[in-house]
């Protein structure tokens, strides 16, 4: 699914090296936590995985395609296979909840009838069907987070990236949210969650990618009982 070989990344403007010598492979259907202290390069690595930025060094392979050999036009189709949940949600404030969630489907050129059906179904799944005509600023942080997740998964992505998805949520909602991710993973979606919430990492016990000073230090796995419990629930 994803293979990073000797990946380095620096911003053109500042020339500062954010990531260097990153090597890892994520298999299809896997579930990983990306962790590390603030400023360690988590968001930059997520941006590379979401194809929002291109590495300045190394070879990146996604969905079996070497990114450096692809044309810019080919990346649009690959991005449609990736769902991203941003730390700050990035909901479009002028659009209704329905239209926010429908956005990836509109981009894919899905028919209006399908959009109506899929979005209604998904909003029901995240418990926001009755808020579908509301604007994002009228929702609570937790509700907005669920809208952001619904938008990220509506296109049935092969890869789901979430940057600090529980950052603005209380423990209970955070736990329910992680349940949604478990369910998606069980349906075959590869998931990477960037977080420095040690509690969640410990409780769910998925393999970890640990970043420090722009370098990937280790990849560890655990099998915490709570993860097993959640798997049984869903």
């Amino acid at each position, binding site marked *: 699914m994803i293979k990073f070989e000797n990946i380095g990344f620096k911003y053109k403007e500042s020339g500062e090296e954010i990531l260097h010598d990153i090597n890892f492979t994520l298999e299809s259907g896997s579930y990983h936590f990306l962790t590390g202290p603030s400023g360690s390069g988590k968001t930059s690595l997520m941006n590379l995985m*979401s*194809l*929002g*930025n*291109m590495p300045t060094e190394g070879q990146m392979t996604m969905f079996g395609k070497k990114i450096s050999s692809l044309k*810019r*036009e080919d*990346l*649009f*189709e*690959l*991005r*449609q*296979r*990736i769902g*991203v949940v*941003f730390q700050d949600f*990035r909901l*479009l*404030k*002028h*659009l209704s909840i329905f*239209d926010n969630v429908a*956005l*990836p489907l*509109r*981009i*894919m050129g899905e028919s*209006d009838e399908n959009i109506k059906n899929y979005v209604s179904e998904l909003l029901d799944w995240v418990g926001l069907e009755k808020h579908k005509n509301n604007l994002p600023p009228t929702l609570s942080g937790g509700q907005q987070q669920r809208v952001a997740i619904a938008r990220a998964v509506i*296109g049935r992505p092969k890869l789901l990236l979430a940057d600090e998805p529980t950052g603005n949520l209380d423990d209970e909602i955070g736990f329910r949210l992680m349940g949604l991710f478990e369910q998606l993973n069980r349906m075959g979606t590869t998931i990477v969650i960037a977080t420095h919430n040690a509690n969640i990492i410990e409780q769910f016990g998925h393999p970890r990618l640990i970043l420090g000073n722009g370098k990937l230090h280790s990849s560890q796995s655990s099998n915490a009982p709570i993860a097993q419990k959640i798997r049984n629930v869903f």
Partner: protein
Amino acid sequence: MFSKIKKQLQPKIKTLGSVLAKTPLVMRMLENLGFRDYDLPLAQSEDSRFLVLLIALMSFLSVLACSGTFALNDMAARWSSGLENKVTIEIAVETKDGHLLSNKTVRKETKKLAKGLKNNPMIKSLAVLSNAEIQELISPWIGDSLTLNDIPLPGLIAIELRNTNQKSLNTLKSDMLKLSKYARLETHHEWLGDLINFTRTLKNLSLFITLIIASVTIIAITAGIRTRLAIHQKEVCLLHAMGATDHYIARQFQRHAMILSLKGGLVGTVFGLVTTAIIIFLSSHSGTTLIPTIKISSAGLALLCLIPIIASTIATITSRFTVLRNLSKIP
């Protein structure tokens, strides 16, 4: 009775309207016309009104410049066609050696000339201008207060030829000089050529002004779109992250620019046409022959009515290229 019919029809019209609005074709049309919200918050932008105003002003100026071009075209065509195959023979008051002829001599020479040329085979028709006609011709320059006795007047014979090739003009000239040594042949070509050249220069100037207006519009739209792209960079990046192609994003901007420019174009064109109509009215009611009557052909008028569509097309294409060029810099 009408209120009863209205009451009965209103629910049916409402139902028909809502059914129509829900059909996919109508929905798509409504969406393309901007009735669905943009993915980007373009409609909320404060500077939309500025763009409408700018396009309105540019359209207004374009209508005036194009009206000028069409009116000058029409004027030149009228002058040319009005003087086709026509020449004037003049018995000038002043001879080549600087002597002044008396009014009596001028009249006598004119009569003699007209009589001699009357049966000339090259001439289709001939008319000696009366003193009253000559006074009418020169009155815009000297006024009506002077009587004919106060100034010496030339003798003028208006002639329509069967054709105006150089050979027939030379023959006419020699026949004329045989009849009167004071006669001069005025073919109008020289002054008409100058006038048409002058008109052409004005016409080119109007076209140049129209081009400047179009260029300024393009520059203003480009700057406006770049500003919008900078303001909505976060949202544009979000659409990109979801896999939106550059064309998908460009379509949002071009539809926005199209609607705004159509609004501005319509307003500016209506004001421009009203102004043109006022100018045409004033020119035809000026009461002086010094100001020519301004006319615009129906084809010209139809072209003027197309200005909002032209403005909208320019805005759409400009915004599309600006967005595509800027987005190509994003990975």
